[in-house]
């Protein structure tokens, strides 16, 4: 009992910080979205969002892009993480540096890099033109593909690092056992490693998904004004239209939407994999 008490004291600064610097202001913003100027409760802002095809379209694009980004990160991240975990310690350090190095650069700077690479005459469109796929003035900027490419580059490390942690903790003897029992390498990865690393993939997917639905700098720079996503719409509503209540309502919807998507996801994976 006493020990438990001490734990609380140790955790107190962190909990207090979380309360006052995060929970209270976030709750304040949420409340703003369901309150009339006179203080009474209202669902008019939420209703405005849910009955307007434009905002529903923005929400749909956000979810669609985030799903694609998460999926690509997971599919590409798992093999990378597996190689990283099973590589020699020396090589692992280099791979670790490779994957974390981009995190040292600001997201805005990396996004500007993509703007150069994807814009008219940039590396990628130029390569596609030389290969004869597109016309000369082709540009990848201001397309959903640009948003997906930029976001994957930013969020990929989160996925890999989540999976690598789990695979590293797997006992290599389990894999050896499966090989001894007659599994091919691929079958062993598929039937032994993959199921056991599900917690890492889930954690990584949650991270990538929640980060990508709430990102606004990269989508607004690479997607432009004509491809709004929810986080960008919140920003625009708060600063350009100065409609804080509606911006708060959109945040509330984003928040609830993420929760609705995440809770079954977590409980499902918890049930099937302990």
């Amino acid at each position, binding site marked *: 009992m006493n020990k438990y008490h001490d734990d609380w004291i140790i955790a107190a600064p962190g909990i207090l910080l979380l309360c006052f610097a995060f929970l209270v202001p976030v709750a304040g913003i949420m409340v703003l979205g369901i309150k009339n100027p006179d203080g009474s409760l209202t669902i008019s802002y939420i209703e405005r969002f849910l009955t307007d095809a434009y905002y529903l379209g923005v929400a749909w694009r956000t979810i669609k892009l985030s799903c694609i980004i998460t999926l690509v990160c997971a599919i590409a991240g798992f093999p990378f993480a597996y190689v990283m975990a099973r590589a020699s310690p020396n090589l692992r350090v280099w791979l670790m540096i490779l994957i974390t190095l981009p995190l040292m650069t600001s997201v805005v700077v990396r996004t500007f890099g993509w703007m150069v690479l994807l814009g008219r005459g940039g590396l990628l469109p130029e390569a596609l033109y030389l290969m004869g796929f597109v016309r000369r003035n082709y540009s990848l900027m201001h397309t959903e593909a640009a948003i997906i490419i930029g976001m994957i580059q930013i969020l990929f490390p989160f996925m890999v690092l989540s999976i690598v942690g789990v695979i590293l903790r797997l006992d290599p003897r389990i894999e050896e056992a499966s090989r001894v029992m007659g599994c091919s390498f691929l079958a062993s990865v598929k039937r032994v490693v993959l199921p056991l690393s599900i917690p890492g993939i889930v954690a990584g997917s949650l991270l990538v998904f929640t980060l990508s639905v709430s990102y606004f700098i990269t989508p607004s720079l690479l997607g*432009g*004004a004509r491809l709004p996503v929810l986080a960008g719409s919140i920003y625009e509503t*708060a600063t350009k239209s*100065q409609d804080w209540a509606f911006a708060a309502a959109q945040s509330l919807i984003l928040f609830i939407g993420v929760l609705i998507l995440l809770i079954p996801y977590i409980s499902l994976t918890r049930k099937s994999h302990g």
Partner: protein
Amino acid sequence: MKANQTILALLTSLLASVSSAVAQETLVVNSWGGAYEKLHKQLVFEPFEKANNVKIKVVTVYSADTLAQLRAQKGAPQYDVVHFSGGQEVVAAREGLISPIKPQELPNAADLYPFATEGMARGEGPVHLVTAIGLLYNEKKVPNAPKAWKDLWKSEYGDHLVLTDLSNSYGLLGFLMMNKVWGGSLDNTKPGLEKVGELLNRSVIISSSPEVQQNFAQNDAWIAAFSQDYAHVIRQSGQPVKFLLAEEGAPAVFFTANLVAGRPNQALAKKLIDFELSPEVQAAFAREMRYSPTNRKTKLDDNVASEVVFGDAVKSLVRFDPAQVDSSRATLIENWKKLIAR
């Protein structure tokens, strides 16, 4: 008792002088980035810092975001002087976010043209610079030089158009002008939205000033609805881009310098605002980026004067009532976003 008070007063004044000698005073201001901010620093902030031994902290924020920040910071304002280009001073003054300045508090205010000081009676800051919105075109690429706003709809310009998002002050005014030439008004923006809708598949939509230059330089833009100041910057950078005051009229962008309410250093802030109104600073702004001065004592070189709308001619520019623009802004921006979203 009296002696006590004297000693106290002496002590406080001593303390004040000591602290001011130790801690250099700081003013926090906003500017709008790009070539403008560079010039703003070079012509206003750096000379003012030297002359008054203060430190000026420049934050790059556009007008609309600045207003949003002022509102959020109402309890504890963080800026001393804010600059607006989209008429936000009307709202800021109405909400008490900025302090009224009496014309006699600014020595240079007496020399300003009346249009630059009329907002001061409503509690807004004075207008320090003016620029015009018109058409920028690449003279080597366009088959025929445009003359009017309606020329944007000519098919000969193909898909080489650049339009500006309405979240940008220049974009908003350019749009309002297009709306006007197609028969709309501030209360009825439908004609403009419909007509601009026809251009969407032929244009790139940008939201910040440096992007205009980038589009002329790299993206094969031929024609853009934007402002005279950046037209000059682009031309100086070596591109064959010309600025046109379209024949239906050119909207004026009034840059105002406003005193933020509830800040301790208002006297110094006023001095900075007054400095921005001085003829020397305004002449330099006209020379470097073709801004129209608002101080009638400003002397312009002939080659500058021939390119700048100035003096009473500023009145010939189209001025949309900022209060009315503000009241329809939110709806207009929402309709615009719906129009352009793919």
